C-alpha cells in the first residue's frame, strides 16, 4: 500500500469508528449499571431521523444534534420503565425497542427521503490540526468526532474517579449491597439508561448530519449491533471500547482502500474482515474474561427487586 495513504486511512478509521463509538459509550454506561439495552439500533435510527428533521427545519445542525439526543432519551425511557420499574426481561424489551425504532423512523421519515439538509462540515482544531501527520488524522474532522474524543476520558473519569461513578459500578455489580448502603438502584439505573439513550441518539445524528447528510430508511445498517460487540470487546472500559470502535472503523476503511488501489486479494475476504474482526475481538475478550482479567458487570441483565 502506498505510504502516503496511511494518514488518510487513519483519518477514515476515526470517521468510520465514531458513530459506533458514540453508541458504544452510552451502552457501556447502561451496562455498567446492570441494564442491557439491545434497543440501541432502534434508538440510533430514531436519533438519526430526529436530528435530520430538526436540522433541516431549523437550519442549525447543533439543534438537530440536541433533538437527536432527546429522542434517544425518550425512547430509552421505554426500556428503562419496562426493565427497571416493571422488571421485564431486558433482552425482550431491548429487541422490541429496536424493532419499534426501525419501524417508527421508517414511517415518520417517509417525506424526508431525498431531501437535502444542512449538516456539519469538518473543523480544524487550532494548533493541533497543524501537527504533521497527526493533525490530518485526528484534528480535521466534524465537531461530533471531537465530542466523542471528550466523552471517552470523561466517561472513564466518571466511572473510576468520582463518587457517582462508584455508585454506578456498585449498582451494576451488587445492587443489593448498594441498596443497603442507601444508593437508589432505580435512580442510578434510570440515569444511566437515559444517558445511554442520548448517546445512541447522538450516534444516529452523526450518520445523518455528519457522515452522510441525508435521511434514508434503516441507514444505520447494523452499526448499533457492532457497538454492542465493542462494549464487550472493550471489557466495559471506555478507553478500550474506543480502541475497538476505531479499530473496527480502521479495518473497514482499510478493506475499501485495498480494493480501491486494486490489491488482488479475494474481495469477499476483504469485505468480511470488519466482521471477522468483531468475532475475533469477542473471542479475545471472552478468553481473557475466562482468565479473570475483565469483568462483566455481575448484575448485568438481571432485574433488581428489593427484598427478593
Amino acid at each position, binding site marked *: 500500500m502506498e505510504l502516503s495513504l496511511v494518514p488518510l486511512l487513519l483519518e477514515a478509521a476515526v470517521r468510520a469508528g465514531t458513530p459506533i463509538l458514540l453508541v458504544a459509550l452510552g451502552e457501556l454506561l447502561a451496562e455498567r449499571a446492570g441494564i442491557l439495552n439491545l434497543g440501541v439500533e432502534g434508538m440510533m435510527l430514531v436519533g438519526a431521523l430526529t436530528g435530520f428533521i430538526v436540522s433541516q427545519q431549523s437550519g442549525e445542525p447543533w439543534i438537530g444534534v440536541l433533538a437527536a439526543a432527546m429522542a434517544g432519551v425518550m425512547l430509552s425511557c421505554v426500556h428503562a420503565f419496562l426493565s427497571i420499574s416493571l422488571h421485564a426481561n431486558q433482552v425482550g424489551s431491548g429487541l422490541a425497542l429496536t424493532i419499534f425504532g426501525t419501524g417508527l423512523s421508517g414511517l415518520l421519515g417517509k417525506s424526508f427521503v431525498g431531501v437535502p439538509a444542512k449538516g456539519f462540515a469538518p473543523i480544524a482544531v487550532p494548533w493541533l490540526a497543524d501537527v504533521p501527520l497527526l493533525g490530518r488524522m485526528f484534528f480535521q474532522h466534524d465537531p461530533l468526532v471531537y465530542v466523542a474524543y471528550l466523552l471517552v476520558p470523561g466517561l472513564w473519569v466518571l466511572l473510576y474517579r468520582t463518587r457517582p461513578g462508584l455508585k454506578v459500578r456498585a449498582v451494576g455489580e451488587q445492587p443489593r449491597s448498594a441498596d443497603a448502603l442507601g444508593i437508589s438502584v432505580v435512580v442510578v439505573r434510570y440515569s444511566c439508561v437515559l444517558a445511554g439513550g442520548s448517546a445512541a441518539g447522538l450516534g444516529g445524528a452523526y450518520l445523518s448530519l455528519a457522515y452522510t447528510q441525508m435521511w434514508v430508511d434503516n441507514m444505520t445498517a447494523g452499526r448499533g449491533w457492532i457497538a454492542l460487540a465493542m462494549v464487550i470487546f472493550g471489557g466495559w472500559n471506555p478507553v478500550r471500547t474506543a480502541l475497538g470502535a476505531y479499530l473496527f472503523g480502521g479495518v473497514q476503511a482499510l478493506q*475499501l482502500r485495498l480494493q480501491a488501489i486494486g490489491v488482488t486479494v479475494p474481495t469477499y475476504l476483504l469485505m468480511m474482515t470488519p466482521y471477522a474482526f468483531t468475532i475475533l475481538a469477542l473471542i479475545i475478550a471472552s478468553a481473557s474474561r475466562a482468565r479473570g482479567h475483565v469483568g462483566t458487570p455481575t448484575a448485568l441483565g438481571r432485574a433488581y427487586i428489593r427484598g427478593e
Partner: protein
Amino acid sequence: MAKWLAVMVITLLTSVLGAAGGTPEALKVGFIYVGPVGDYGWSYAHDQGRKYLETTLPDVQTTYVESVPEGADAERVLTQLARSGHKVIVATSYGYMDTMLKVAERFPDVVFLHCSGHKRRANMGTYFGRMYQASYLTGLVAGTMTQKKRIGYVAPIPIPEVIRITNAFVLGVRAVNPEVNVHVVWTNAWYDPATESEAANSLLDIGADVIATQSDSPAPVQTAERRGAYGVGFNADASKFAPEKHLTSAIWNWGPYYAAAVKQVRAGTWKSTDEWWPIGTGIVGLSPFGPVVVDTLKNLVEQRKQDLIAGRFDVFWGPIKDQSGKLRIAAGEKPADEMLLGMNWFVESVVGTVPK
C-alpha cells in the same frame, strides 16, 4: 385466532368500502417491493412508477407492500394480494422469482409481472430495462470530465447485472478516453449509505476526481461534492445532493412500462413475454445534466443516445477485451442477450476484481 379474525374483518371492511367508494370496474394492481420506498433508490423508483400508473390510467387502484423479504413472507403477501382481488401483481426483485411462479400457478386468472427474472408461464411475464445503455452514456460524461484520468466507482453486490452495468459505464469512459482507469470498490450491500460514503472517500483518497455509483443511495455523490469531485448518480436523480458537481445520473423510469402492461391486461391483449426495454422507450435514461456539463458534451451524449435508439450502435458490440487483455467479444460481433445476462468479467481499464 384473534389475528385471523382481525384479518377477516379488515378484508371484509375493505371490500365493502371498496365496493361502495370505487368505480365498479376499477382494476386493482398490487406491488411488492424488497426494500423500503424510502430508499431513494430501487424501490423508490418502482414506487414512482406505481404512482405514475395510478395518475395516468383512470380506474386503476394500486396497493403496495414494502420491505418484503424474499421467501415465505413474499409467498404470503403475494397470495394475500391475489386473494383480495388484485388482477395484476408486480414483484420487483429477482429473488421473488420462484415464489411468484408458485403463486402464479394457483391463480391462473391473475396476471403476474416479475422484474429482472427469467422464469415465465402463461400468466406470468418478466420485464426489465436496458440500464447498461444509460450507464454507457454516463460513462461518456465521466470520461470527458476527469482530469486526473482516474475515476472511482462504488459497486453494490457482485451479480451479472451489476457487472454488466459497470462495464457499460467503463466502455463509455473508454470511448472518450481510453487512458482513464476506473477503480471499482464493492460495498457488498445494496444499501448502506455510510459505507457507500466511505467507499467514495477511499476512491477520493487515491486521487479519483469523478465518483460514480451503482449502489442505492446518493451518498457517494454527496461525498464527492463535499470533497470537490464530480459525481454520477444511479437509480434516481442525485442532483439535490450535489448541486455544483453533479454531472448526471442514470435513472429508472418504470411508469410507462406499468401503464402499457396494465392497458394490455385491461384490453385483453396481454401475453406473457420477456420485456427487456431499451433506452428508446424511456424506461431508462439520464437525469438533467449538472451546471458544469458543457453543450458540446451534451450533444455528444445525445448523439450516442440516438445511435442506441436507432440501433446503429450498441454498448457491447465488439471488439471488447477483458481486464487481462483477452478478447471476449470479437470485432463485429453483436453479443446475444444471454451473454449479457451472464456477464462475470470486467472490461479493460477496470482496476478491481470480480469476487469469485
